[in-house]
């Protein structure tokens, strides 16, 4: 069935009609921008949701003017109801994890730059590529539709634990149609990602240009390739899970619903299902998903760091070997999300070990980065700042993993804000920093104009300090036993923690506001920015040896030939301290580790 897409890329001519050019385009560059745009919409939507939640948490009974216009049931008189808080929580998580952290660094930048970096004119299966975006787009629409149905969006969180997510309206508002829409949306999203991963893998394997050996692939391409291998297997498991969930919800089957449940005085007509089955399927996807979000960021940051440090990493091979190790291990650790889920306690220890071991490759990568900064000639442009900031937050989020990897500490920390702090730091903030670094780095190539560096730095400083003010305290709250996913804090022991929550909320408002600087910078620079040269950062990989923005076939009919590795920085080249991959000048002795 794959043949259905004509892979003869250099045969299709640039489309002329608006629809074929910008809407249903098969050009990987347009599709990449479409993914990036979708992620941009999602991330600001998700951020505004988090603002509403933070506001509600500290001013629980205060009215949010105008909210009742958005949802009459969700916010009578503007005061958010508990179920509406949970709806926002679910949508925030789903939007951020799926439509931002998966779409932007992987599908977005990957689509745009993977083919160029390997020297291809397009992806292996351009039509599948187009399908993959539009399926994802439909998934997005279906998800957002949940806001506009009477019951509102689901309230079961982005993990949609069964049976809460499976039993339907008895268990609460939003669990009727809202949850079904959610399941359909995620199912579609899986299809889109599978098509995407397929393209990434085939393109990397088969469309590399002359001289582009695997070891000459830029680190970012390595990251996207590894990510697509992870994603291929992860989403292939989430899809069946969604199918079974939908059947339980609409067809009356009992995959996840056991017998004898009495929900709102109503004895459920199900028997024999296993709630743990959902958790196993979901986390078998869910944990790799963390790496689907972070590995591309690791690649992007490594890629940018070398261009900013004007020297290669101590060893690029070690970095991508570690990424492969992480990807491999990520399939053996899903159980650490279920230490307290009533699994056989022995499996707790079994899952704990690989979880702790996975920190080794992560530490190696981090130490390689930090070690590489030694002796660098840092150029502090905005992409560089965000890359260095990435290292900092990646470490901050990583170390808290040590706690949660241990079942005995999970007894105290599971289900508290410590977990929230952990994954927001390491998966959310870190990945977002990777995305922002990539945005500032590649914007010139994608649009032909430079972004405003002053605004960029301002954006960086507020964001960098802001995220620490928001997410570090989460860990403290967790240590004090502050339970997550509460729409307000009624427990006596939580009252002393409210001031800290106020602080976090204020920090969140400021940091969030700073993101609009970025948005303004994007839009302003797109039209008014200084014209970008072909290679503004003196970088080496192939995307910089074509025009900004690249022509429809990426290299203007030229068949690029690659003579050098991607990391030839800090050498004496024709144009300065670097040698571009496709320049025929003689290269120096191979860089250590490559």
């Amino acid at each position, binding site marked *: *069935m*794959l*043949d*259905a897409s004509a*892979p*003869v*890329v*250099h045969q299709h001519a640039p489309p002329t009609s608006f629809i074929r050019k910008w809407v249903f385009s098969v050009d990987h560059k347009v599709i990449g921008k479409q993914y990036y745009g979708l992620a941009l919409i999602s991330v600001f939507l998700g951020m505004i949701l988090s603002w509403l939640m933070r506001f509600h948490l500290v001013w629980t009974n205060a009215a949010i003017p105008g909210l009742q216009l958005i949802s009459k049931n969700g916010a009578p008189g503007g005061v958010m109801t508990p179920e509406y808080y949970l709806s926002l929580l679910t949508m925030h998580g789903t939007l951020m994890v799926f439509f931002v952290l998966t779409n932007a660094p992987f599908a977005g930048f990957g689509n745009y730059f993977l083919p160029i970096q390997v020297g291809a004119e397009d992806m*292996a*299966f351009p039509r599948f590529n187009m399908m993959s975006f539009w399926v994802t787009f439909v998934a997005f629409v279906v998800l957002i539709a949940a806001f506009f149905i009477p019951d509102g969006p689901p309230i079961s969180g982005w993990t949609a634990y069964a049976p809460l997510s499976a039993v339907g309206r008895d268990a609460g508002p939003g669990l009727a149609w809202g949850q079904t829409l959610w399941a359909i949306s995620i199912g579609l999203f899986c299809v889109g990602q*599978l098509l995407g*991963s*397929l*393209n990434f*893998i*085939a*393109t990397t*394997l*088969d*469309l*590399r*240009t*002359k*001289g*582009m*050996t*695997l070891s000459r692939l830029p680190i970012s391409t390595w990251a996207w390739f590894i990510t697509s291998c992870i994603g*291929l*297997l992860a*989403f*292939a*498991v989430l*899809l*069946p*899970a969604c*199918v*079974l969930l939908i*059947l339980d919800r609409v*067809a*009356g*089957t*009992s*995959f996840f619903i*056991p*017998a004898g449940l009495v929900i709102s005085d109503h004895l459920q007509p199900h*028997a*024999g*299902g*296993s709630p*743990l*089955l959902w958790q*196993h*399927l979901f986390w*078998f996807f869910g944990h790799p998903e963390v790496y689907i979000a972070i590995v591309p960021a690791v690649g992007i940051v490594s890629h940018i760091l070398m261009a900013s440090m004007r020297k290669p990493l101590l060893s690029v091979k070690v970095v991508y070997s570690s990424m492969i190790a992480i990807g491999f291990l990520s399939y053996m650790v899903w159980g650490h999300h279920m230490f307290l889920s009533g699994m056989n306690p022995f499996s707790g220890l079994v899952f704990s070990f690989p979880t702790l071991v996975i920190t080794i490759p992560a530490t190696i990568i981090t130490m390689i980065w930090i070690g590489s900064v030694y002796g660098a000639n840092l150029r502090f442009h905005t992409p560089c700042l965000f890359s260095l900031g990435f290292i900092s937050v990646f470490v901050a989020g990583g170390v808290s993993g040590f706690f949660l990897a241990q079942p005995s500490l999970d007894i105290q920390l599971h289900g508290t804000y410590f977990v929230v702090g952990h994954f927001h730091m390491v998966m959310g903030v870190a990945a977002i920093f990777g995305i922002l670094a990539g945005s500032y780095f590649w914007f010139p190539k994608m649009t032909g104009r430079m972004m405003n560096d002053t605004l960029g730095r301002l954006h960086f400083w507020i964001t960098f300090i802001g995220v620490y003010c928001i997410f570090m305290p989460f860990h403290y709250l967790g240590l004090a036993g502050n339970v997550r996913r509460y729409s307000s804090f009624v427990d006596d022991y939580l009252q002393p923690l409210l001031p800290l929550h106020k602080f976090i909320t204020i920090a969140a408002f400021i940091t969030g506001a700073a993101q609009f600087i970025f948005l303004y910078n994007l839009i302003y620079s797109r039209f008014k920015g200084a014209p970008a040269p072909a290679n503004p950062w003196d970088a080496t990989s192939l995307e910089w040896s074509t025009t900004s923005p690249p022509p429809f076939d990426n290299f203007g009919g030229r*068949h690029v030939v*690659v003579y050098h590795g991607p990391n030839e920085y800090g050498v004496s080249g024709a144009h300065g301290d670097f040698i571009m991959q496709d320049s025929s000048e003689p290269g120096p002795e191979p860089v250590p580790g490559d």
Partner: protein
Amino acid sequence: MSTIALQTDRGVRPAAQNAPALSGIWVAIAAITMAFAAFTSSLIIRQGSGDDWRHLALPGVLYLNTVVLLASSLTLEIARRKDAANLASTRSWLYLTFALGILFLAGQILAWYQLRGQGLYLATSPNSSFFYVFTVMHALHVLGGLAGFVYAIRRTLSPSSWRTTTLDAAATYWHFLAGLWVYLLLVLRMRL
């Protein structure tokens, strides 16, 4: 897949742009295998979790369908071995394969009707649920394969656009579906 990678490692741009189709097929096969592995482990966990596991007699027609599907694999292989010289017979073999594929689907639908006849619906018991899930999911992939054939046959209409890898890819996928079906049949037979 690896062979192709090696070939390009020598720096030679693949001549036939169909090479991706072949490795793409293998990637797809990996994903599909993963999905059905997930379904299978769900079945095993589900069987252990409830005491409502009721044995279910598989409709006899399934075995007939198995034969049909395997036969279609055979005819496809014959078609594939033909060279560009005698496209006509290649095409006729492909048509036959296509017809057998349709026949297989018809047989599956018959099997579903037989089960309904016994009052076994999707939600009747975990066993019937899994039966329908497995067979329907497989049938969907067969449909995809048939769509591939339409394309492959179109490609074989003229010697100019004749590409063996197109057919190779379609064949690889089709044989995989046959193998997958045999596996599913065994699972259903042993577990349900």
